[in-house]
């Protein structure tokens, strides 16, 4: 009986399996139907064949830039989309992954051109006027374009901007919203922008708070003018409703953003949390088909398209084209397929499930090597905006002695580390602004022995320390090939590569240098940084600086160094990294990192080293007042030199970002600082799929 029972049980299992299998086969045919549906409707010419085969044949015909609907672009997200609410996206849910999906749908008065980071009009009709004084205050009157509409047909008006700014202020929205509507005094809640007023539907008047000088670039062009505009007709009632709630902000952020109209290339369409989201082409996109051109004198031109515009900004005159591309949308739909991590996403990419992987950290080196061997893929590599650095606690001895930091800078051989040890996984850098941001980069920073041989830099470092009054029990020495005490030291003799480690190092005031702790993310978190830290330890030991390299949890390092602290003496040195700042005004980051008013101690700012340098403070003040880009650039270059000389940070390296995509996908640009992942909203509407 029992045997028969088992047979019965097995049969039941098989029945269930059979059901699943049959359902699966059904499901396969279902899949093709589902995928072919948008293709066939989207393709302007339908052939006799089935939908799937029709798509590729029709694709080449749709190369006319104004024509939308050339297939579907599928891209992988390596983390979940967590909201479809634009308000929430820019505050509590400001993850890059949310930005990938939501970022393109909202217009702003002015935007940055990619890849050259020029300020160009978006909803504004012309370049920003200079601020004029009106009594104590500074004002600007900005005309808006007529004819721009939201995807539900409502016009984009000055009222949308006013509504957005008022909402930021009334609901006290945080994070990114603050940089669009900055505080003058955060404690008191006063804002720089005192009044925002729509004179009519297409004219805006901005009134800044009273001050002696006109607000600089950071506040004006790179601040309030780049604020996104949200559709008042969609949100007004919701915001009003939320104002009545106990926590209006939470209420607003919790609202489902489904159905919000877009004025960007695409409209948010479907979302299956944890699985995928999709956006569809916006047929009413104002800039559809417009061609953007940047000339080598940074003249910018936007022309053509449905709007029929032809506008040129900048000096004009040059005909040498730096970059040029046409605006879309070219694909009918973009599907963001969510994967739990980059490994899964790249595997899906390899299998052909997705055309591209939106991965903020780029293609990891191992994956790259594997993909290089695959046919039908295209690559681009770009420098990243961010950098990894070694920070010193300037509140403690001997880190507060310039020579100490400079000597370390001499012995840290970044070229050797990056090119030999890390085999090209990092790019050695000497300034915070990456070389690729050519407009703001300066080469005139102190590179501390770059390109000089190991022994010689070592000698330079020792000399520097000696000059500063450091002493040793056993002096550190780079041995030479024939270091014969009888003969006089010959400068021409080569270094043997053997070193006598310094011992018993004492500071100029005679104190023994204590063991210094170097906090670094562990090899599990970032093998690059931990490897570099290990080597810094090796080099430090040679100089007689006892460095204890301590792989430490990221959160622990941040906790020790960043939040408001009593004395800030809990650490000596640490290695962390910063992501990109604002490439069109990079030195605002410098102010945040090194400004005396940004000290982590007490204030809880980002100036962890406790850098307080009069020259830098003066530069910082000047930077706040700069109203032209040229002016700001000069100041920024000086800041870079100041930092590279005084070394509150030793900038270590940045990483190249590799992008890879399936041939047949065409991006408007591929050479851009930070790679394709840095500004996906600038190209997601322009991407073409020809296969």
């Amino acid at each position: 009986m029992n045997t028969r029972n088992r047979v019965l049980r097995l049969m039941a299992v098989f029945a269930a399996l059979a059901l699943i299998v049959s359902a699966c086969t059904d499901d396969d045919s279902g899949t093709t139907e589902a995928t072919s549906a948008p293709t066939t409707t989207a393709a302007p010419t339908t052939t006799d064949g089935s939908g799937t085969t029709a798509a590729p044949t029709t694709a080449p015909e749709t190369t006319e830039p104004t024509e939308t609907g050339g297939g579907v672009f599928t891209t992988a997200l390596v983390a979940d989309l967590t909201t479809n609410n634009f308000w929430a996206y820019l505050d509590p849910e400001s993850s890059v992954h949310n930005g990938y999906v939501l970022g393109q749908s909202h217009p702003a008065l002015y935007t940055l051109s990619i890849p050259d980071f020029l300020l160009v009009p978006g909803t504004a009709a012309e370049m920003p006027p200079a601020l004029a004084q009106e009594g104590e205050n500074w004002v600007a009157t900005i005309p808006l374009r007529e004819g721009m509409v939201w995807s539900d047909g409502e016009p984009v008006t000055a009222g949308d901007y006013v509504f957005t700014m008022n909402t930021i202020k009334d609901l006290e929205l945080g994070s990114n919203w603050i940089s669009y509507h900055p505080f003058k005094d955060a404690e008191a809640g006063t804002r720089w922008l005192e009044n925002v007023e729509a004179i009519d539907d297409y004219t805006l008047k901005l009134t800044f708070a009273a001050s002696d000088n006109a607000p600089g670039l950071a506040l004006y062009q790179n601040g309030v003018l780049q604020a996104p505009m949200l559709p008042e007709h969609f949100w007004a009632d919701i915001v009003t409703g939320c104002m009545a709630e106990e926590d209006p902000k939470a209420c607003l952020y919790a609202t489902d953003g489904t159905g919000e109209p877009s004025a960007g290339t695409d409209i948010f369409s479907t979302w299956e949390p944890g699985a995928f989201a999709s956006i569809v082409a916006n047929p009413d996109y104002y800039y559809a088909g417009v061609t953007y051109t940047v000339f080598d004198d940074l003249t910018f031109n936007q022309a053509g398209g449905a709007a029929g515009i032809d506008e040129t900004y900048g000096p004009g005159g040059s005909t040498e084209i730096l970059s040029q591309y046409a605006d879309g949308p070219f694909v009918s739909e973009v599907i963001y397929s969510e994967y739990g991590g980059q490994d899964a996403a790249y595997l899906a990419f390899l299998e052909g499930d997705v055309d591209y992987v939106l991965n903020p950290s780029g293609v990891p080196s191992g994956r790259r090597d594997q993909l290089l061997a695959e046919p039908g893929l295209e690559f681009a590599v770009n420098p990243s905006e961010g950098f990894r650095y070694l920070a010193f606690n300037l509140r403690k001895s001997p880190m507060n002695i310039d020579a100490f930091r400079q000597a370390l800078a001499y012995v840290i051989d970044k070229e050797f580390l990056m090119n030999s040890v890390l085999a090209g996984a990092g790019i050695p850098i000497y300034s915070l602004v990456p070389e690729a941001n050519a407009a703001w980069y300066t080469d005139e920073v102190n590179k501390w022995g770059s390109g000089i041989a190991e022994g010689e830099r070592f000698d330079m470092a020792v000399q520097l320390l000696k000059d500063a009054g450091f002493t040793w029990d056993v002096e550190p020495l780079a041995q030479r090939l024939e270091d014969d005490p009888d003969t006089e030291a010959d400068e021409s003799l080569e270094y043997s590569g053997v070193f006598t480690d310094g011992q018993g190092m004492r500071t100029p005031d005679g104190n023994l240098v204590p063991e210094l702790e170097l906090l670094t993310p562990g090899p599990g978190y970032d093998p690059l940084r931990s490897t570099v830290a290990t080597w810094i330890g090796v080099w430090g030991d040679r100089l007689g600086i006892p460095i204890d390299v301590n792989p430490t949890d990221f959160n622990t390092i941040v906790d020790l160094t960043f939040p408001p602290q009593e004395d800030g003496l809990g650490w000596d040195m640490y290695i962390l990294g910063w992501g990109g700042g604002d490439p069109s005004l990079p030195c605002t980051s410098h102010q945040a990192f090194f400004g005396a008013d940004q000290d982590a101690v007490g204030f809880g700012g980002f100036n962890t080293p406790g850098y307080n340098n009069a020259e830098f403070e003066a530069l910082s003040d000047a930077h706040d007042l700069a109203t032209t880009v040229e002016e700001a650039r000069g100041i920024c270059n000086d800041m870079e030199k100041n930092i590279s000389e005084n070394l509150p940070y030793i900038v270590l390296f940045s990483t190249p970002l590799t992008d890879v995509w399936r041939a047949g996908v065409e991006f408007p640009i591929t050479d851009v600082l930070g790679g394709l992942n840095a500004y996906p909203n600038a190209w997601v509407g322009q991407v073409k799929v020809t296969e």
Partner: protein
Amino acid sequence: MLGYISKRVAQMALLFVVFLTLLFLLLQAQPGDFASQFLDPRIPAANQELIRQRLGLDQGMWGQYWTYITNFFTGDLGTSFMRYPKTVWAVIVERIPRTMFLFTMATMLSYWMGFLSGKMLAWRRGGKLEYGITLGGVFLYTVFYPWFALMMIWLWAATLEIVPINQFLTPDFWLDSPFSATSVFTAMIWSSVLVVGGLLVVQTVAGRMKEYRTQVLLRRTGRVLVFGIFVWYWASSSMRPFAADITHHAVLPVVTLAFIAFAGVMLITRGSMLETLREDYILTARAKGVPDRIIRDKHAARNALLPVVTSFILGLAFIIGGGLVTETVFSWPGMGELLLTAVTSNDIPTAIGTLALIGALALIAHIVVDIVYLFLDPRIRVQG
């Protein structure tokens, strides 16, 4: 018996409060806070304070603790930090069907396979086959799980391409789906729970029958009926292709999870069976002339079942932990993955909410074990 159970429940409730407190203190003691996730030179440092205020991180530890505990027992798990202003509960509810589905399937599969094979192993003790299977079982039991999962992906998804590699559904196929994935998951979980429940009811009702023949008949028709309804439901449901898509994606993680868990069950069953087979009552049964198969299934397996049932119920909490690895490797966004992200990003409410849920599950499991024991082992009934 009721008194016994209520005493246990009271003990458990007290334990749970201690557990929550401990969790809270542990998570609070972690370095860094959630605001550290928002270090950005483009955003003024003052924003950090705003975030701390918004999340209540400025209240001080005991203030936060008091708020948390009082809210917890009014059913408010608080607001998730990383998904602000979503409540923790909403975040968990979004994830739970996916995890539930994954591990109800894996658990049922693993216990079914494990118990049957463990029983056989003990019965056929000493053979070469037993040796091989035991070694294989130990290998599976101690295998480095993430690694094993990778190898499974490599074999079944990357090389043989029988199953999809990751995600829990095919986005293309679901673009125009009239159902949300959650509703499909829920339907699938309910139907499988009902099948198991139905089978249990059939088993119990049949067991109550006095005549052996009626028992057999009832059991057979009952099973056919239960499976029949299941098959009929899904055959007629318009959700079927979507459920099939999810099932197709779930095969690999379920099988992998089941393989790992199966080995443990098998080893436990084997040990338990071996001990049972040495009992005198097995000799009695043989002396009574009871056929071997019945000795194995009725006399030995029934007694050997006790530790297996214990491990089954107590293991439920473990599976969520194991799910953490599974979900990460197979990129299946469920509770385990949520827990991992919450813990690593200092999202205290979400982390506690998830851990508390697991803890509550484990506690309930403890009580269920006690009650199940009351039924399975008559020796305990008296003590209660």
